[in-house]
């Protein structure tokens, strides 16, 4: 099925108008020796019925677990039915970036509303229309800080998601910046003294995450003024967006940028993507912030309308002088996040509280098992770290029951070799937790 509507008669007429006898007359600019003489070596075309069966078969090779104890950057949450219905409207999903504002008021207004809700949740004045994901949003914030301040050092705490730190390192390497990692302390929170010692007059940005990779809520305000006193910017990240419903916004605690992963807002786990990077900042950076911004204005008759604005920051105008190279973003995922937030409304706080309670019950239950103990003393949101005898066997037992276990921290943190990172969201029931316990205890 090639989705080409031309009949042989249409094609003949078109070729006559173009003035060619064969289709290959259109491809004479390709040097003869590089023209493909044979068909590509690919499987033959399939009917819709056949391709549907094929794809269902591939999908069925995946095992979808009834229970997942894994968070670590991707979260299993309930997605209200309205989200799927809105993003399935093809006026949204088959449109391009809204360059022609007069026929794109739908997405422009929806993005303006999304930006507003993200700014409110993060305690910031500005939020963009989305970045690729949380990790790239954090990396772009670091690069923006370095470019703005003309400094070359990035300080990142080791309790930031390991993959986020890797992305920061890749972006920093490409730009010739230095990345310094600083430790967490025994409680699981950032080591404030070590952090501030690493911040010097070459430092562009301090990157932290709250709740951090261990689920721990950081006291952002405790370092903000010291970081600023050194002339550096404070970038506060998150991977679990529902935490914004319960925690004090990083913007209210002195962060210059709040960046993070918005997947938890109405987007499925999708085996890692597409997700959406949230990027918010203070007013001061309005004209520097990367990515698209929808802005309100008026039309010729004074009627309110929306456009993509401050485009002189962007690559299609500024080219090599642009803040970022980002063009396509994750607009449809941002639309899903916006619909999710409208649907939840003030209940977002209740949802976050429910996550908190489920995780604390799971934590308490696991702490009661012989040989199990909670590793960190600092307060957590919906993830936590447990030390247990033989984590690999624990996960294997769970896997044998079709359940995804905890994240094995030893691969990223040699000091946490016997430790698993667990997550519980509103999707986990008390029965699930009882079942998990009985599987772990079983031989």
């Amino acid at each position: 099925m090639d989705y080409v509507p031309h009949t042989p008669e249409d094609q003949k007429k078109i070729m006559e108008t173009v003035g060619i006898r064969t289709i290959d007359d259109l491809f004479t600019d390709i040097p003869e020796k590089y023209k493909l003489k044979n068909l590509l070596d690919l499987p033959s075309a399939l009917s819709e019925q056949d391709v549907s069966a094929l794809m269902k078969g591939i999908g069925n090779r995946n095992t979808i677990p009834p229970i997942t104890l894994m968070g670590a950057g991707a979260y299993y949450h309930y997605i209200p039915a309205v989200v799927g219905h809105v993003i399935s409207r093809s006026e949204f999903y088959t449109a391009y970036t809204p360059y022609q504002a007069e026929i794109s008021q739908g997405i422009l207004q929806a993005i303006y509303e999304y930006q507003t809700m993200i700014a409110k949740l993060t305690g910031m004045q500005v939020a963009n229309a989305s970045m690729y994901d949380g990790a790239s949003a954090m990396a772009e914030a670091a690069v923006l800080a370095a470019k703005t301040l003309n400094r070359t050092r990035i300080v990142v705490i080791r309790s930031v998601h390991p993959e986020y730190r890797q992305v920061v390192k890749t972006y920093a390497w490409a730009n010739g910046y230095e990345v310094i990692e600083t430790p967490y302390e025994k409680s699981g929170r950032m080591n404030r003294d070590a952090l501030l010692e690493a911040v010097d007059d070459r430092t562009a940005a301090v990157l932290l995450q709250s709740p951090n990779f261990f689920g721990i809520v950081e006291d952002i305000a405790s370092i903000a003024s010291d970081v600023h006193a050194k002339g550096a910017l404070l970038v506060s990240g998150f991977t679990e967006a529902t935490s914004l419903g319960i925690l004090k916004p990083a913007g209210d605690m002195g962060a210059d940028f709040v960046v993070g992963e918005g997947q938890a807002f109405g987007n499925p786990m999708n085996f890692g993507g597409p997700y959406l990077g949230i990027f918010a900042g203070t007013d001061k950076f309005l004209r520097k912030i990367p990515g698209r911004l929808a802005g309100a204005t008026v039309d010729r008759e004074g009627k309110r309308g929306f456009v993509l604005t401050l485009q002189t920051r962007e690559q299609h105008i500024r080219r090599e002088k642009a803040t970022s190279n980002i063009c396509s973003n994750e607009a449809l995922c941002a639309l899903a996040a916006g619909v999710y937030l409208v649907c939840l409304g003030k209940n977002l706080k209740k949802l976050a509280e429910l996550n908190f309670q489920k995780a604390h019950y799971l934590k308490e239950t696991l702490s009661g098992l012989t040989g199990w103990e909670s590793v960190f003393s600092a307060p957590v949101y919906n993830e936590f770290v447990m030390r247990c005898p033989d984590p690999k066997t624990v996960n294997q037992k769970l896997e044998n029951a079709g359940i995804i276990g905890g994240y094995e921290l030893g691969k990223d943190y040699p000091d946490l070799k016997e430790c698993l990172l667990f997550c519980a969201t509103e999707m986990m029931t008390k029965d699930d937790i009882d079942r998990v316990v009985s599987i772990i205890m079983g031989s």
Partner: protein
Amino acid sequence: MELIFEKSRPGRGATTIPRSDVPEVAAGSIIDKNLLREEVDLPEVAEVDLIRHYTQLSKRNFGVDVGFYPLGSCTMKYNPKINEDISRLPGFTSLHPYAPAEFSQGSLQLMYETRQYLSEIFGMADFALQPAAGAHGELTGIMVIKKFFEKKGEKRSQILIPDAAHGTNPASGALCGYQVVTVRSNSEGGVDIDHLRELMAEIVAGLMLTNPNTLGLFERNIEQVAEIVHSRGGFLYCDGANANAFMGKTRPGDLGFDVIQLNLHKTFSTPHGCGGPGSGPVGVGEKLVPHLPIPRIVKRGDSYDWDYDCPDSIGRVRAFYGNFNVMVKAYTYIRSLGPDGLKRASEIAVLNANYVKERLKPHYDLAYDRVCMHECVFSGNRQVKESGVHTSDIAKRLLDYGYHPPTIYFPMIVPEAIMIEPNETESKETLDAFCDTMIAIAHEAKENPDLVKSAPLTTPVRRLDDVKAAREPDVCWKGRM
């Protein structure tokens, strides 16, 4: 139209949170109260309000399913519905990215085979699927080149980019720490070979070339271009934004390209979603494979696994593995079309662009009068001179006739540019009706220029004040719900 916030009424809601089945613990008893927030300032609306709000918004939006969308360089072809349905199967949407490999064999197989198919279609040694969009792929591709020279101990500080290139090219080069040097176009719209020869030195990492270029023209001197770049040890990078022009006809790898980034959301018809999600796989030749992002998928016997042990890799450019769900759609598309379908898609895309070019040639100035590939570029210069009607006016007038306008004012080397990419999925009737409308607008411009300048007249809002939007930025609503 009212904002959703303006529709908010205290006490309304669109959801209920399930009752907790575990013992209640107050967050305030565990987390320091200074670290907790009070209320969340989000709207309170009923479900019916929510659905009507977004349905009304969708009616103020134009997608490929609404009408013809000849937006040059964006490949707005029809998006087959089966791809959407397949991508929503729970087997594809519901899996955690850190699921053990035994749980994710279907996803891994799909990604592994997508890499193989793309390698075959574009003649590359291998592909990495991690980049989230075309520009992200460009950045990754340039990083791969940078890593190669670093490993070799060579310092190269410049990257060459033609003047006709997309803005993402120079921005990607700069974000990799390269100094961007511009190569001129020649009189027939290709690379100025003499200028390239002059600029291509041992300090140049490579040339980023879009082929066919943004004028819709195939680089006739591609052999010479490749020879010049390679002879000084540089790499030839292909911006694959225009890959819809040559599937099954020629392969960038065979033409001498060392790196290519694709836009699955263009060529492989996974829709654009108002600007994303996209997917920007990067393909490379043998020499550059060790530098692709981690992790890589490996096949052992009949099963698949992740390989993180790639010491020469650039590292990661995002978390996890890329926009997997977009890959599902691209994979479905490739399997539906097969090798003859992909070839026919490119052939008809090129045929349709040439048809539109021939029909409009008498009425608008053609930037370069030669056979074009999948898109053709006109200039609105004649209309400006004759009646003061600009390309932006013509675009706005098209809105009144129910079309999405072509790309305008790009490429920058063509004044008043009008870049038309009709795609293979449009019928002769659609193309004819569009051309008739463009011709009618050319007449209107002569006879009633004020009408064209006052367009659009039929859209939900009239022309919007971009200057006000930029001077008095309002990107977040300041009220309280």
